[in-house]
């Protein structure tokens, strides 16, 4: 029986065919890896600067446009853009934090909130002005290539994104663990006063952290665009889900963000399958609320 009317759709959208559960979970994992990429930068910023960066989506959008124009104007492959876009985004992040966000905060949470909100409005509307409102897509030789895994077709760009998320998380972890910068960032995240006393330049390290977080968005943009599109508002669709992942994974935890991303990807896929695609979105937030209430430090809660 087909479901008839809104009500039966609300109750359940017909039991899914069991054969599609495996492909659906696989897809959830690859989509989740993309979410994780966006969340990695956010969790770094969150863990170190303790700020809710409302401009995260807008900056992701800028990264996507960068990849788009590099590809369409200069024929640079999105994966080659990995060498260009993240460093540029890093510089942008550094300047934004040091020049505007840090300065405007005056040590108050609500000011940071306002500034990042203001920045996102500015960036999105500048994009609207310069890039126009058209939805843009790039065409790559591998856009429609698929790899067969367990009888499911997994598009190549998503496989690359999946691997990219692991590599990025690994690199970030290594950077935080083995470099002086990493140690300084961790010290600052824990105890600002103590860190400045031992001679850490807090403003510089904060800006470096913010820059790194935004550079992660650059990576995400390069890996996302081959299977997605860009328009001035595109980032907004990722912000909320990235916050969810950050909190689930424990703020400041890269492993947490990675696992949280994969987890949310699978939850989204399965709840979409069982509750219907529209209502299924509720699964993400329901889990988010439950985790926060019963385990407020996140599933893997520990600090940077």
């Amino acid at each position, binding site marked *: 029986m087909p479901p008839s009317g*809104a009500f039966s759709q609300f109750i359940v959208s017909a039991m899914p065919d069991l054969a599609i559960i495996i492909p659906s979970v696989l897809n959830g994992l690859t989509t989740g890896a993309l979410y994780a990429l966006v969340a990695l930068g956010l969790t770094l910023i969150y863990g170190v600067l303790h700020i809710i960066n409302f401009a995260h989506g807008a900056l992701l959008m800028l990264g996507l446009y960068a990849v788009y124009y590099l590809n369409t104007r200069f024929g640079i492959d999105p994966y080659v853009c990995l060498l260009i876009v993240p460093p540029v985004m890093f510089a942008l992040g550094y300047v934004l934090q040091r020049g505007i966000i840090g300065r405007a905060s005056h040590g108050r949470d609500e*000011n940071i909130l*306002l500034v990042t909100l203001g920045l996102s409005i*500015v960036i999105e509307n500048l994009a609207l002005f310069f890039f126009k409102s058209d939805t843009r897509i790039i065409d790559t030789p591998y856009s429609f290539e698929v790899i067969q895994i367990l009888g499911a077709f997994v598009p190549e760009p998503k496989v690359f994104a999946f691997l990219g998320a692991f590599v990025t998380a690994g690199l970030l972890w290594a950077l935080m663990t083995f470099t002086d910068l990493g140690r300084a960032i961790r010290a600052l995240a824990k105890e600002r006063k103590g860190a400045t006393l031992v001679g850490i330049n807090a403003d510089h390290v904060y800006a470096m952290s913010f820059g790194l977080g935004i550079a992660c968005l650059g990576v995400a943009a390069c890996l996302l665009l081959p299977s997605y599109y860009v328009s001035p508002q595109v980032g907004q669709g990722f912000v909320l889900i990235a916050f*969810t992942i950050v909190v689930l994974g424990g703020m400041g935890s890269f492993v947490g963000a990675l696992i949280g991303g994969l987890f949310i990807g699978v939850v989204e896929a399965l709840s979409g399958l069982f509750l219907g695609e*529209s209502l299924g979105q509720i699964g993400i*937030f329901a889990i988010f*609320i439950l985790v926060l209430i*019963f385990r407020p430090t996140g599933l893997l809660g520990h600090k940077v």
Partner: protein
Amino acid sequence: MRTLIILAAVFAALALVPLFVVSDVWLNIAIMVLYSALLGQAWNMLGGYGGQFSFGHAAFFGTGAYTVAVLQVQYGINPWVGLFAGGLAAVVVAAIIGYSTFRYGLKGSYFALVTLAFAEVLRILSNSVPITGAGVGLLIPLQVAPSNLQFADKGSYYWLVWAMALAAFLVAWWIGNSRFGAQLMAVRDNEDAARALGVRAYSVKLRAIMLSGFFSGLGGVFYAQYFLYLDPHIAYGASVSIESLLVPIIGGIGTLFGPLLGAIVLHAISEFSRDLIGDIPGISLVLYGTLLVVMVLFLPRGLAGLLIRRKAAPQTPKKTEAEHA
């Protein structure tokens, strides 16, 4: 007492606006200012006086709006009844959110994000259940009659939102001058210390979110009756949540007049940037966003910070390790 007199004088002056402003455009702007001030003051009760930043006030706003609309459209119940039902329904939602978060001691960013998640859950639900018209939305039939809470002239709408805002500001004044408010602010400034002094933090915060929810719900009722159409994005979307917190933050959080100042200034710069720039898509919003950033750079304590410089300005909750652990 002096602030109460000033408050009375300000609202008395505001009440006269429709008698002098004949232009519908200006009256509409005045309506939207009071409407923003209402939403802002509602947020301020919890966020400003209580230090609990909510990103999800749309949960209350949307519930108020849908309640009055659903009662009218699906059950034929008069919107004057719906007005109070809407406020009360929002209180119920606020109680549920408050109970499930404060009881478990959620604070800071965690509280902010969980309220956002609740608003999203409600948005998705309202998008799916038939009673709200799901994605099609709810259109309140156009039947202009005061008994129907629909008015032919903007002046009457103005007085409606004026009365709602007045109630919200009186309650905010009461918070600022009552034992309850003192406890709420004590919890904001240092919860552990407040507890040590015998303040029942959980119950104080719960009452604050319910008050806050009520007035946000009234804002929703006003929106529904003024524009007569709702869909899940209008009711539970992020823009209401953002407007609710933007207004008091710009004006000065935890201050009585902050939300009013914030509402006036936000609408002023929005109108100003639109008039200045005009027709180029997006550019007026660029100017709007820039002005926001510039204001924060130079007015870190909001507009009210200018006025109360000499008094001890309210403390914002300092980030503590416990909050982020």
